[in-house]
């Protein structure tokens, strides 16, 4: 090896230079990453309003960067052959140095080695490491001063913390007021219905809904707060419903009578109330008992065999009026609870609707809600609207409000007409207001099917030409056809324009 010290020293110089440059680039990259992390952390801290002790923070970051650099720099391996190959290229030595070095290292006994080394030694002392491996930093290094400047700017200039809700605040207040109006209106209607039906719990809740609506109109407030208030009221409502359910479980719920069946223009509940009133007298007249018995029989015929009505009839026949009265009171209480539950359910849906409306608006998705008809604008009272087949999602201003046992006629025909009208209104909307990007899309291929004309091809040309082209290609490739005709064949298939 000592005989070829020029090549050896040149290889060492190039190797050291190569490692040094690689470490320099690595250092720049680590510094770049460190500056990026510092800028990111400074920005995040400023936006989130955190106060970071800058000395500690930058100290940790610097220590981390130094550790990463030390680990990666230690792993950098010298590429002597690469450096020598580069020297060959830069100095135009026709791979003399790299070949000589490789053969000296790996095939030292090769007969050509002395000759190779003679030439390599001649060239090696001319190798200048700086010329072969000049200092060329990647352009990304320019990002370091930019990032440092940006970090310092962030530190000097005060950046106020990010306010997430400020963008929606001006619009939230009118929306809350509007929802307050709606809630107050629904509360009034609910109270009126509950009073008419003598539903105490519903009445209390309806008053509280009205109060909440008035408060929302008066105070406004942020959508989040309002939603919380509504949620609190909903929790109260759920507790009421839970109590009703527990009561229903304690009594025999199977005895609930159909409320929609009409009895000479009266509802079943009204009929039962009249019956109870008739039996309230301590000593009812004989014809009164007979009338009551007839009424119960008529009721049984209308709504079918019912165990409670059967028991009531037996009590009346046996003259046990106390038992009959008690039985009637139980049935009425059950009916009352059922109606109360349904009222509460509607109130719950109203509150849910308001919550969703406020949330949707605060998220900027109210465009669909605005396009729906408002309760006032529809021109119909919520009391007149049926609720069958309507989910709370479809509610636009509580159209599905309907009093249990409403007197003005319950019928599916009315509901169907209402749904039809809603559908009609929807169908009159523009076909689509969805915006789609225009431009090039996937190619659409359409095949026109028609009866083939006599004596014409039965198979479309698209289906056969590829097959024939492949066959022609194989025949042409096998050199079975003279070259002149091969060209004609290729040109023919090219002219069809269905090349792969």
């Amino acid at each position: 090896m000592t005989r070829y010290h020029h090549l050896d020293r040149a290889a060492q110089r190039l190797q050291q230079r190569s490692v040094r440059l690689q470490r320099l680039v690595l250092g720049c990259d680590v510094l770049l990453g460190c500056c990026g992390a510092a800028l990111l952390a400074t920005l995040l801290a400023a936006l989130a309003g955190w106060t970071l002790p800058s000395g500690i923070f930058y100290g940790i970051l610097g220590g981390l960067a130094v550790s990463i650099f030390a680990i990666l720099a230690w792993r950098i391996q010298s590429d002597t052959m690469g450096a020598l190959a580069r020297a060959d290229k830069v100095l135009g030595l026709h791979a003399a140095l790299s070949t000589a070095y490789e053969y000296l290292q790996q095939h030292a006994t090769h007969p050509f080695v002395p000759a190779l080394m003679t030439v390599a030694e001649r060239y090696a002392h001319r190798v200048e490491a700086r010329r072969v491996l000049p200092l060329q930093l990647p352009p990304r290094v320019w990002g370091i001063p930019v990032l440092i400047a940006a970090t310092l700017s962030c530190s000097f200039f005060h950046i106020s913390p990010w306010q997430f809700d400020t963008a929606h605040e001006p619009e939230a207040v009118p929306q809350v007021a509007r929802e307050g109006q709606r809630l107050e209106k629904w509360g009034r209607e609910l109270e009126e219905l509950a009073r008419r039906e003598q539903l105490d719990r519903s009445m209390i809740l309806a008053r509280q809904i009205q109060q909440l609506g008035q408060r929302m109109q008066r105070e406004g407030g942020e959508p989040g707060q309002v939603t919380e208030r509504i949620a609190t009221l909903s929790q109260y409502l759920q507790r009421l419903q839970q109590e009703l359910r527990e009561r229903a479980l304690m009594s025999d719920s199977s005895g609930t009578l159909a409320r929609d069946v009409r009895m000479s223009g009266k509802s079943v509940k009204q009929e039962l109330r009249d019956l109870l009133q008739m039996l309230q007298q301590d000593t009812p007249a004989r014809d009164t008992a007979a009338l009551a018995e007839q009424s119960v029989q008529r009721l049984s015929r209308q709504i079918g065999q019912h165990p409670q009505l059967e028991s009531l009839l037996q009590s009346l026949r046996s003259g046990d009026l106390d038992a009959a009265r008690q039985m009637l009171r139980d049935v009425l209480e059950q009916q009352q609870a059922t109606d109360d539950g349904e009222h509460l359910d509607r109130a719950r849906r109203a509150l849910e609707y308001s919550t969703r409306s406020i949330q949707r608006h605060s998220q900027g998705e109210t465009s669909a809600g605005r396009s729906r008809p408002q309760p006032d604008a529809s021109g119909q009272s919520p009391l007149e609207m049926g609720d069958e087949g309507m989910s709370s999602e479809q509610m636009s201003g509580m159209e599905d409000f309907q009093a249990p046992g409403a007197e003005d006629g319950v019928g599916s025909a009315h509901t169907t007409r209402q749904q039809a009208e809603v559908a009609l209104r929807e169908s009159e909307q523009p076909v689509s207001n969805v915006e789609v990007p225009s431009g090039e899309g996937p190619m659409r291929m359409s095949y026109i099917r028609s009866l083939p004309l006599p004596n014409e091809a039965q198979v479309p040309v698209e289906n056969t030409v590829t097959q024939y082209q492949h066959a022609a290609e194989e025949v042409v490739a096998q050199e079975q056809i003279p070259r002149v005709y091969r060209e004609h064949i290729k040109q023919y298939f090219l002219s069809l324009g269905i090349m792969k």
Partner: protein
Amino acid sequence: MTDIEAQVTQFGEDFRRVRSEIAKVIVGHADVIEGLLICLLCGGHALLEGVPGLGKTLLVKSLGAALHLDFSRIQFTPDLMPADITGTRVVSQDEEGHRYFEFQQGPIFSNIVLADEINRATPKTQSALLEAMQEQTVTIAGVEYKLHLPFLVLATQNPLEMDGTYPLPEAQLDRFFLKLQVTYPSYEDLSEIVDRTTQRQERQPEPILQAAQILEAQQFVRDVPIASHVKNYAIRLVMATHPQTPVASEPVKRYVRYGSSPRGVQSLVLAAKVRALFQGRFHVGFEDLRAVAVPCLQHRLILNFEGEAEGIESTTLVRDILEHLPEQAPR
């Protein structure tokens, strides 16, 4: 000066003299002459392509004359039979009147064989020659006969007048070490040709090398060192001719059906070694590979339907690869 240096110097000197002797007769065509010498020193065969009248036959004759080697010429015609090339057994009679079969050698039993217009013979006859090229033996009636070494086949084919010809299939083309294009001479070369060929005395080449020297040179060539990164470049060059490899260029992907066989990289490295010695160097460099890439690879690329229809030349594709392939493999 070391032994190797002396040998390399001698090698260079000998072949410079051979070239100068050939140049007494042949004007121009320096690349073709170098290609023929490369084939000779690598133990390969060459396919010369050029229109008639460009001196292909004269070139081969002159090579034979400059090398002290036997020379024979076979004019390929559609009625040529394999036995016309390899030889056949004929009935002979000895002094006692006994008859016996005697093998009569065909024209292939020469050091340099000129297969003129090889594409005019039938594939059966072509195959007989190509088998001899590959194995350097001929088998007649179960008896194997060794051909004279060094054995060099120089086949010519005319790119025009293709009617009624049998172009060599790709598998047989692959057996030619190099494919050399004999181009039309320049104005100056034509002037020189006129001067030389219209005088009373035509110059003749003097024999320079014997067969044994050539065989020794063939072994010497194989010792020339090639660095691993230079060898990797040769491999990547050949890989780049395959359309399915990641290093393939866009034109290769579009117009090539099959790339070069492993024979391509063998011929590339061997030819580069000879060229390095011609240049007086003891090792192969990148430029040696680049210089021999076109004659080594052009006939080994099989174009697809689209490439042939659009008249793409395989030389263009090889030059495109050379232009775009980096010397060092990307890490």
